């Protein structure tokens, strides 16, 4: 699976939009980009997944440029409850292989 690089931490305030960028320069043609969220004392939770362009669900948006060497997770109007660690993972869809977690980005939302 492709290696990913993310910022270690980010701070934001309630109501703001947060964008977390992940670099994955050696992404393969068959790889998808997936983001997980982890709250303290819980297991990681799937947020969103995409292959190219833009994907949006009720929680977040995922922007992927044409070269797919990076991706940006966008959280609209964050609240205190969005304080968590966010992981960017790259791997093939329909490949129920092991997930490889990096260090993730620790997002702290302030009131």
């Amino acid at each position: 699976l492709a290696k990913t690089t993310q910022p270690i931490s980010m701070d934001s305030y309630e109501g703001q939009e947060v964008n977390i960028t992940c670099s994955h320069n050696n992404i393969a043609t068959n790889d998808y980009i997936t983001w997980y969220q982890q709250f303290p004392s819980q297991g990681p939770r799937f947020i969103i997944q995409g292959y190219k362009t833009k994907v949006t669900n009720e929680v977040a948006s995922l922007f992927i440029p044409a070269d797919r060497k990076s991706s940006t997770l966008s959280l609209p109007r964050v609240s205190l409850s969005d304080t968590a660690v966010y992981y960017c993972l790259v791997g093939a869809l329909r490949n129920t292989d092991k997930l490889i977690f990096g260090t993730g980005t620790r997002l702290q939302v302030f009131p």
Partner: protein
Amino acid sequence: EAGVTQFPSHSVIEKGQTVTLRCDPISGHDNLYWYRRVMGKEIKFLLHFVKESKQDESGMPNNRFLAERTGGTYSTLKVQPAELEDSGVYFCASSRGRDFEQYFGPGTRLTVT
């Protein structure tokens, strides 16, 4: 739909003792995974079951760790004998298969003293 459950939530044992962790996946999920995070490190893959068969156990650190999934339902992970470096949080995850979404349990925090 019930999520992935793990038992116990926390276990404190002495070095040399044995501990067994249990994971109940989401009903109908054939794929079951074990991961762990040791202190200050990243979440690391341990092994992957498809039903009762071990698909990939490349992440198992050594032969003190034994995972089973009899009948293809719940799974156990036994550590025998436990060492100090085994301390950490052990996560279990399950998926239906053929997609990338894995559902994680809350983890078992293992402390070896």
